[in-house]
Each structure stands twice: as structure tokens, then as C-alpha cells.
């Protein structure tokens, strides 16, 4: 589950997003905010191993539950 070598797949729900910026702060390069509304943008839905811990942390920190880990399938890493 939290094995950093395991591939992961990220998704974001911009309707739920409240633009707090925790994802972009915690995992830059994986998440960003658009300049207009400040809502989540997934830059890398299948981040390489070295970014996975930060990406997981960002998912846990999101105040709105707007970013999620989905299945590990299809990740290229």
C-alpha cells in the first residue's frame, strides 16, 4: 500500500477542489493549480518512484478530498 516502489495512479476532482494549494505545495511536479481559478491540475498521473511519497502525502493532506489514488494499473512510472 505505501510501498514507494509500487506504481500509483492519481486522479483529481476539480468540482470538489477548494484551491487551498496543499497538493501543489506538497508534490510540485505532480500537482499544480491553474492560474485562473487556482484549482487542482494533475501534471503527472503516474509519478515516478521518487515522487510517490510526496504524491501520497498530498492526497492525505487535501482538505477537500479532491485528489485520490486510484488503481495502480497502467502506470508506467
Amino acid at each position, binding site marked *: 500500500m505505501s510501498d514507494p516502489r509500487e506504481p500509483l495512479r492519481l486522479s483529481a476532482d476539480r468540482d470538489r477542489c477548494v*484551491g487551498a494549494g496543499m497538493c501543489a505545495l506538497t508534490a510540485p511536479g505532480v500537482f499544480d493549480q491553474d492560474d485562473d*481559478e487556482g484549482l487542482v491540475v494533475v501534471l503527472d498521473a503516474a509519478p515516478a518512484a521518487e515522487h510517490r511519497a510526496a504524491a501520497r502525502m498530498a492526497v492525505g493532506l487535501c482538505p477537500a478530498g479532491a485528489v485520490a489514488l486510484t488503481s495502480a494499473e497502467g502506470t508506467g512510472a
Partner: protein
Amino acid sequence: MPHDPTTAGTLSDGTAETTAETTTETTITTAAEELPTLPTDRRTGCPFDPPAELTALSDEPLRRLRYVDGHTGRLVTGHAAARAVLSDPRFSARYEHLHLPMPLAGLEGVTEMSPAPVGDFLGLDAPEHTRFRRLLTGKFTVRRMRQLAERVEQFTGECLDAMEQAGPTVDLVEAFARPIPALMICELLGVPYTDRDRFQEHVATLFDQAADVAAKGEAFEAVGRLMAELVAAKRAAPTDDLLSDLTTSDLTEEELIGVGGVLLAAGLDTTANMLGLGTFALLQNPGQLAALRADPGLAEQTVEELLRYLSVADPILRSALEDVEIEGQLIKAGETVTVSVQAANRDPRKFPGPDRLDIHRKATGHLAFGHGAHQCLGQQLARVEMTVAFPALLARFPTLRLAVPPHEVPLRDRANIYGVVSLPVTWDKE
């Protein structure tokens, strides 16, 4: 009818200015007398710790609490329970649903609070809250705020220059903690330099623990008047700032004035308290201060730890719109829940050794900015301001120390946002 005009004494989105109920809901309060009330007295212990009596209540993460009007609601002191409540849309932030866990500073007679004034989106739920928030989040992104770092550095340098000129003894609140966030929020909003003192004076009254209801009402109206003038000016001649941008949104004139007032107040009275109290905390923890001075690269995590350790915006209030089960307990519709941010941020299950200030700790996940849809809108600005300002202060004054014994530092122990009233500091002149 509720009669309090000052609910716009609100803070960053996510730190509830409290209100009381106007609903007809009646709660049976058997044995309510035996229930604890919210402990707020910090006078006996370390100035950075939550009240000892609150810590004593933190053995249970969620417990019953007696409110000012006799209502039986809840107190959340556990980190997990706090997150659960704050992120659950079945808990409302609308002021008119809330009961007060403690008398409001300066408004001791007030037990019933009015709904949010127009534009005060902190006291709204989705979808009304979402409408306001969406207009603003694009202005406070991580990227935009980081672009302001250079400006923060420049202005911090000016404040430090002025301190050197005035020293070697100054009030750090006056010279440093207050002006830096004030300048930044004024520049963001587009408040001209000449209006800043006028705004600052009225906002100070709004948050002044000694000011009475009448004074606060006047200050609230004065901020509204100044903001109305400013909005009219931006409409006539737009400039490159947030208020000008908002004149082209779908906000009504009244909403725009209200939003402007909330943002200004939030910008003036939140980070300033973190800078003042945070410096006090560092000075009282010389090992931590030395570590930060030696390695300014620790600034970002120091800021997170200070946010956790000090939790100046506290508590956050919510009201259950329906029956909700949290950690196996049923919270009934209509119950007010007081989320004690300072207690949750000292939850040993989340932060081992929570009463220790430890800048090497990963304090990420603290709830100092709240959690859920109302999590502080200005948090990335606050982070940039603090990350720049603390190391700059320490670098400029290697011998910085308190100019009075620590117990003589006056504390805002009854204010909505905790902090120091003033912080006399001194240093060795070269």
C-alpha cells in the same frame, strides 16, 4: 433578532468567528450543569501551551461540552476527529446555526449571533460559499504567492533597517510583525498606501480584546465605508490588483465590499500574530532558534511547526445539519461542535511529544489553517511571509533577545486570534 454587527471580525477562511443559534431547535440538556465548559484560561502555564484544563479534557478526542446559553454540544480535541468534522459537509459553518462555547471577546453579553454579513463567506456553506471561494482561489495559489517572496524580502529588509535605526530596543509587533503582512495584503487587494493606517486602526479595534460592542460596531461600519470608497475608486479606474479584478465579477457592490473587508481583516490580524508570538516562542527555545539561524533552509518546516505549536486561530465552530456519527459517537442534528485546533495540534497520536517545539519535526498535517472547504484561503501567502521574515530577522540581529522578563510579555489571551500584544526586544549594537 440578532443584534451583533461585528461578525466580520472574521479571519482567514476556516477560522470561525463564532455565532449562536436562532433556530427553534431545543436540545434536552439533562445534567448540563455537570458538563465542562470550554477552558480558555492560559494564564497559569507556558504562554504557548493550550490552557491546562483543556489539555486535561483532551483524554477523550470527542466529548460533551456545555455552551454559554446552556446548549449541550461537543468539544473535539483529537486530530482525527477534528479532520473528520471539518471535512464533512453535514457540518455547517453558518453562524446562525452555532452556539457559543465561550463569550466573545468584547461582546460578553451576546449569546445570539446574526447570519454572516453580506460578503462574509466564512459563515456560508456550499453552494453559496463555493461561489465566493472560486472567485478568490486563483488569486492565492502557491505559485502566485511565491512570486511575492521577493517583495516580502524587500519590505522585510526595510522594516529591519527601520528597527536598526530605532533600536536597540523596539516593540517587535509594531516594527515587524504587524507591518509585513499589512503591506502584503494591502498591495494584493490594492489598498493605497495613504488608506492603510485608516484601515489598520479600525481593524485593530475590531480585534481589540478591550474594545466594547459600540466601538466594534463603529469600527465595522468604518471599514465598510472605507472599503466602499475604495471599490468605487477601483471601478472608476481599475488597477492591477484583486479588488479591481473583482469589479468585473458577478459580485454585487455590497458583496464586493464585504469580501474586501473580510480579506483585509484576515490579512491584517492573522500572520501578524504568528510573527510576534512565533518570535517569542523561538526566543524562549534558544536551541531551536540557533538551529534555524544556522540553517535558514529549515525555515519552511519551522513555519509549519510554529503553526502547529501555536495554533493562534482557535477554535473553529460547526453545527450538525443532520445526525452524524464521528468516531462511534452520534452527534445529533443541531448540535454545535467546537473543534479545538490547539488541542488537535497537540494530539500525541498525531504528533509525538506534542508540547515540544521541534523545528526538525515534520509538522505537516497540522490543522492551524483549518481543514475542509473553508481551509484558510490565504495560507500560502502566510507561509511565504513567515518563511522570509523569520530567518531575515534572525540574520539581521544575531543577539536578538527579549527586553523584558518573559512573564511580562502581554498576551492576547482573550482575543479571537492569540498572540502577543507587544514584544519588547533588544540586541547588542555594534
